[in-house]
Each structure stands twice: as C-alpha cells, then as structure tokens.
C-alpha cells in the first residue's frame, strides 16, 4: 500500500478533511541554524468520519504534526489543507475541537466560566452556551465541580474539562493529543467511547497517542511515526491481521470433548502447531468490572464523577439517538449491571490452510462482537469472587483517594 493511497477500507470516495503533503518541520536555534528535524516529508490524508491515529514513541513528531494542523506551528516545507483551507484560516477553526496534551486552561476560571469563555470565542449565543456547558459538564462528570477553579483540579479532572471545551462547538473535526493521559481507566474508557460515538455521527477524529491500547480500541486507520517520518500507515485490520493463524473460543468443555475436537484438528495440523489455553481478560476490563461493582455498592466521590450520557447536542440528529445507542455509549461502562460473559478456553490453531473461508465466517459470526468496543469476557463468577472482592476493596479506596 503506497503512502498516499489512503482510501480507508470502504472504498467509497469520502471527502478529505485533512490533506498533508511533504510536510517538514525543522526547529531552528536563535541564530537560525537547524536544530532538529521534528517532522520529515510526511504525507497523509484523513477522510470524513474516520478515527485517525497518530502513533509513535515520545518525540517522534506526532505533537508537532498536530500543532501544524492547528496553525500553532508553521511548516518549514510542505502543504497542509484542513477542510480545504490553510490551518491559519480563522473561519475554519469554528469546525475544529482541540484537546492539547497538557492542560493549558486558565487556572483562575472555574469549569462554568471556562466553557463560557471558549463558547464565546465560537460566538455561540448565551442561552445555547449555557445549555451546552451544562450538558458537557454532566457528560464529563464535572457537574459537581462547576464552581471550582480549574487550578484546583486533579490532572484527570483537568483532562475532563479540557475535553469538554474541545466539544463546546460541536466540531466536525476533533483533534485529541494524548486524550487519556492522566485519566483513570474509567475515564479512559469513557473517552474512547466518546470518540467512537463522535465517529458514528460522521465526525472526524484525529488521535495522537503513544498508548497503543487507546489507538487499537478506537482508530480506523493509523500512521506510525518514528524519528519524524511515517514508518507505517494503514487500517488496523491491515496492519494487525495475522492471516496465518485462527482462534476458537468456547465455554469450558469436558475433557472428552476437547480430545474429540483435537483429534479432528490433528488430522489437518501437526500437534506442535496447536495450543490450548484459557484466555485472560485485559486489566482494563477487569478494573472496570471491579469499579462497577464498587459503585453498585455505593461510593460518593468528591472528585470527578464518572461520565454520563453524551451531551445531547452532540447526539442530536443521528441514528445513534435511539435509546439503545445512548445507553451503549457511556452508560454501559458506568453502571454495575453489565452482564459478564462466561469464561472460555481458547484453541489456537496455526497454519490452518485447509479451513475454508466459509467455515471461518461461520465461526466468527457468533463470537466476535460487531462494535469496535471489546466485549469483556470474564472468568466464572464463583472461581473469581474472592479475588474480585479483594481487588474491589483496594480499588475503591484508591478511587476515592485519587479523584
């Protein structure tokens, strides 16, 4: 796949929100001598409705690229178009929401004033501003802290208010620089769900992160930076698929059944290529389970509360406006009633050339959830209950302290 061939998955011609061609940024010292080549001949496009990830280690040029997209830095060479205009075109900025990597908010303003100020910069009328502020504060879980000055906020709370201000204008393009930095796992999940909700509404999201899980969970397409250059680019499916292996997940089976299955498999595949284990869920899912349980048992926190429903104006006029969808976006993560999937062992098979594509489809149809949000799978309730309670206590105290 060439660097410029970026028509994401679907193949239909969606409009370009961002076009970057030959973008180069050289930082210079006081005497105008080149100091560092932060971004080097970068090309990419971002289509409308995409969640686009800029991935790379610290100092690889992600943030510099983002700052050039926003007109905060000027390219040394190359060309950027945002909605068909230069990044410095003032009117275009009314369609953009930006969350910087650190909280650059005014420390002396409280949450309400912060949103009111930024709302004013978008020329939003007072009544509308007030309504949106309320919904956003509710959404990011700061409605109890609306009169507290931002300078007093914890890092996580500052992140939340930062996210709220980025959405005050109902932007068509949301640029998020390390959006989950400083957030607890609950907050991370909320942000990720919010990103997905925005994408479903046809909004374009650019996400810059060095946290692989962030990118993996939400991005349609990513570029991977290293040393200011793009090292890889494509959809996650293209980049991550291992086409020569497959995995079957089932509930725990009796030993006899497993033997039978293995017997069938061994007819096609050598024994040393087959592996059986019990899948472990990832820590994020486990953590969320514990917290949800704690919340069900009640815990009032003075800090940021967990986010609630996506602000109404951000939902309006979309297919997702259905009650079922609204429930899915954030609520699901904040309530303790999520059904826990039964534990399942995994049979991992390598080199299964003989299995037809048809078979594969049938197998995956029922197992893989349709939404990009990973469905948590969990160990049997009884076996884990003791551990869960222990962790529950620990994390509850941690949460109350750290908020």
């Amino acid at each position, binding site marked *: 796949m060439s660097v410029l061939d970026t028509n994401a998955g679907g193949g239909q011609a969606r409009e370009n929100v961002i076009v970057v061609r030959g973008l180069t940024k050289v930082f210079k010292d006081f005497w105008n001598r080149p100091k560092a080549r932060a971004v080097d001949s970068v090309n990419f496009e971002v289509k409308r409705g995409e969640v686009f990830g800029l991935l790379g280690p610290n100092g690889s040029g992600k943030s510099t690229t983002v700052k050039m997209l926003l007109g905060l830095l000027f390219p040394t060479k190359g060309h950027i178009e945002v909605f068909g205009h230069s990044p410095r075109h003032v009117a275009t900025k009314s369609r953009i929401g930006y969350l910087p990597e650190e909280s650059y*908010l005014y420390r002396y303003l409280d949450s309400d004033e912060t949103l009111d100020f930024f709302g004013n910069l978008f020329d939003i009328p007072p009544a509308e501003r007030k309504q949106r502020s309320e919904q956003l504060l509710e959404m990011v879980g700061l409605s109890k802290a609306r009169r507290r000055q931002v300078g007093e906020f914890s890092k996580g709370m500052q992140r939340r208010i930062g996210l709220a201000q980025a959405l005050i204008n109902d932007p068509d393009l949301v640029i998020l620089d390390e959006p989950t930095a400083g957030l607890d796992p609950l907050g991370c999940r909320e942000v990720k769900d919010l990103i997905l909700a925005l994408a479903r509404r046809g909004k374009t999201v650019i996400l810059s992160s060095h946290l692989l899980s962030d990118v993996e969970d939400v991005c349609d397409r990513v570029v991977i930076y290293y040393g200011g250059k793009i090292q890889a680019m494509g959809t996650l499916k293209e980049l991550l698929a291992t086409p020569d292996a497959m995995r079957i997940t089932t509930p725990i089976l009796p030993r006899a059944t497993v033997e039978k299955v293995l017997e069938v498999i061994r007819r096609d595949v050598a024994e040393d290529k087959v592996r059986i284990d019990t899948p472990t869920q990832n820590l994020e899912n486990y953590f969320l389970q514990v917290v949800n349980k704690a919340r069900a048992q009640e815990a009032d926190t003075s800090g940021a509360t967990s986010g609630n429903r996506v602000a109404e104006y951000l939902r309006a006029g979309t297919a997702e406006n259905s009650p079922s969808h609204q429930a899915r976006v954030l609520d699901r993560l904040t309530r303790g009633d999520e059904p826990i999937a039964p534990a399942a062992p995994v049979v991992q098979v390598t080199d299964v050339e003989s299995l037809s594509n048809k078979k594969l489809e049938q197998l995956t149809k029922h197992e893989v959830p349709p939404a990009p949000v990973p469905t948590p799978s969990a160990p049997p309730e009884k076996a884990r209950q003791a551990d869960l309670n222990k962790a529950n206590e620990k994390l509850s105290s941690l949460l109350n302290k750290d908020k």
Partner: protein
Amino acid sequence: MRRILAIASLTLRAAFRYRVVLVMALLLVAGVIVLPLIIKDDGTARGFTQIILTYTLALTTTLLGFATLWLSCGILAREIEEAQMQMVVVKPIARWQIWIGKWLGIVALNAMLILLAGAAIYTIMQVRARNLTAKEQTILQNEVLVARKVAMEDTPDYEQISRDLIRERLQHEAPPEGLSIPALQTIIREQLKSRDQLVQPNQRRIWTIQVGPPSEVRDKPMTIRVRFDPPVPDLGERFMTFWEFGDLATKTQFETNFVMPSEAFVEFPIPPNLINDKGELHIRFDNRNEKALLFPEDGMQVMYRIGGFGGNFARGLGIVFCWLALLAALGLAGATFLSFPVAAFCTIGVLILSMSTGTLKQIIEENGIVAVDPNTGRVEETKVVNTLAVPVARGLLNTFNLARGFSPIDNLSSGRAITWTDLSQAFFQICILLSGGLAAIGIAIFTRRELATATK
C-alpha cells in the same frame, strides 16, 4: 465583537482573580491619603496644591504607569509561555482580535483604577482645603481650583529664520572657515532667540498677546503669570519690575511695579477690559536693573477663567488615561515577541528614555553626537554617525513629543484649563497615532509568530 469582549473580560477577570486590582486600589488610596499626611504643606494655597494635587497625581500616574506596563507584558507574554494562548488561537478568533481584546481589558482596568484614584484625590482636596485660612482659600479658589485659559505670544520659527538667513548670506559671502553650516546655523539660531528673549538693562520689551475674542473676555479679570531668569542663576536675588498693560491708543491702561524673584513663576491680577478690539493685550516691561533678564518662551502668560475645577480635573485625568492606554499598547507590543522579564525590562527602558529627552534635544541642537567646543563653537567635520544621529534623534523626539506635549498635572496644579480640544488632541495623538502604531507592530508580529514550541 463578542470574541474581543470575551478576551477583554477574561483579562479583567485575571486581574481581579490574581488580586492585581485589590492591591493597586489599596496602594492608590493609601498613597493619596497617606502622602499628604506625611508631607506637611506650608499653609499657603500654593503649597497645599503642590502636595495634594501635584504629588498625588504624579504618584497615581507613576504607580498606574508601571503597573500597566508590568501587567500588559505579563498578561500576554505569560499566556504565550504557559501555552494558554494555544487554546485561544485554535478557536475562530483572529490574532488581531486577541491583541485588541487584551488591550481593551487593560484599558478598562485602568479606567476603573483611575476613577477610584481621581475620586480619592478630589475628596481629599475638598476635605483638606477647609484647614486653610480664609485668605488662602480665596487664592485657592481663584488660582488653583479653576480652569483658566492661557494665552502666550506666538514663538517665531527660529529654525526656519536662521536657515533663511544663512542661505541669504551664503549667496554673497563664502562660508566661514572652520565652521560647518549646521554649526553656524546653531549659533545664529541661539543669537536670534536671545535677541528676542533677553531684555538688557534700561531696555524695554513689548509683548502683543492674542488673548481671545473681545466678546468672550469682556469684563473678565485676568491674571499674568510671568517668569524670568538672570544671566547667572541665583535663587536669592530679587529684581524691581515695571509693567504697563493695555493699548496706548485707547487709553485704557494699567500700570504696576513690584519686586519679584527670578527663576520662578509669579502670578498677579490685572483689571478687566485692557485688550483692544482685535482681542490683543499689549504688555510693556522696563528693565531698570543692572543685569539683563531673560524671559523664556513660556515666560509671559495671560490667563482668564473659563470654567470650574471639576471638569478640568476630569479632563486632566482623561489625558493621564490616554498615557496609560499607550503604555498598555507598549507593554503588549513588547510581550508579543519577548519573554515576560525581557519585555518588562525593555518597555520600562523605552518609558525612561521617553521621559529623559534632554540628550535627544542636545543631539538635535548640536547637530550631532560629537561635542562642540564651547569657546569657539566649532564642531568637528560631520561624520556618518551624525548624519544618521540627527534624523533619528529628531524622529524619536517628535514621536515622544506626541505623548509628552501634554502636561495635565502641571496644568491642574496651576489652574490652567485643559480644554476638550486638548483632550481630543491627546486622544488622537496618544490613543490613535501612537497606540495605533504600536498595535500595528504588535499585531503584525503576533500574527507571524509561532505560538507553540517543540516541547510545549
């Protein structure tokens, strides 16, 4: 406009939340109240004015001036350094709107503080004036707490006259040896000035001063404000003075004579209706002393009452306010491309330079930086640096004078009127020309500046 106002009100809010307003308000009120308490006046109306009006107004102007520079440098430079500005410029607001919004915020803050200080000074004056004797109170009401119009004789353009004289002479004669043309012009200019201003022993000087339309000044008592200097400064010396006022032809004359100190302004009343039909007042002075006396350019002033003190005081504060608006623009312009400490240091430097223009004047008068031999008046050959220095000094001085050409504090404490024309002129020159120029420079730099860095 909503965007500009949002920035302005944010700036104001910052000043309140960081307690700048509280501290400044306390400092101003304390200064205005405490200063007259610790410095005793001598019981005269003039001493009273000196302390209550001049000192407190000067204190207010200085305090607010430095605070404005400091604040305007800080409010922009620190927002850029701490990256809050990044959050603003990515919103649909042009950079000029941000700059103007900041400026308006600081200007509004100054308006509040100057109103507060003005009210405090006015109240203190009214309260303290009761302690004066009845006689001094009358002087106070007549000489200080009034708005008097000032008329002076037109000063000839000595620069032009001396230039014409030289041109005329060089047509017939060769230039004098060892003396450059500019040096020669300086000598001639000074000679012309002293010819007009110096009154030799047993000589008479006559002034013709256009006071005002006769209808406007009819029946109005007038005050003469006069000052002269002896050839060698000596504060203790007194001189006998002989004065005649009015037109010889109309026979409406007034004569007076008295002993007067030198090197200080002296005021004395003359009766009304001494001016002629053209609105002119003729003044004759006889020097019967043994020494020559020099009347400086503003050494002879005719004043008459045109209004009360309140309005005059408000207009005076208006001019101070224009200065503060200019300082806000200066601070912001510096902060658009310098870091906070450097911007504060540089702009305060510019302020000090503008307040001490003696050197600039000297460079212009001596036609260069190279010293003139005081005995021969000879100047070394004009060098490249001088051909550059003179226009630069002239440009700087003219620019500074656009703001310095007003003296509201001096006018208020001598009861001279600050007219609406003065105020509008101050507004035009200071707020439009100078502040506008600084704003243009500041905005141009701000628009071209990258507001993020590699790390922030």
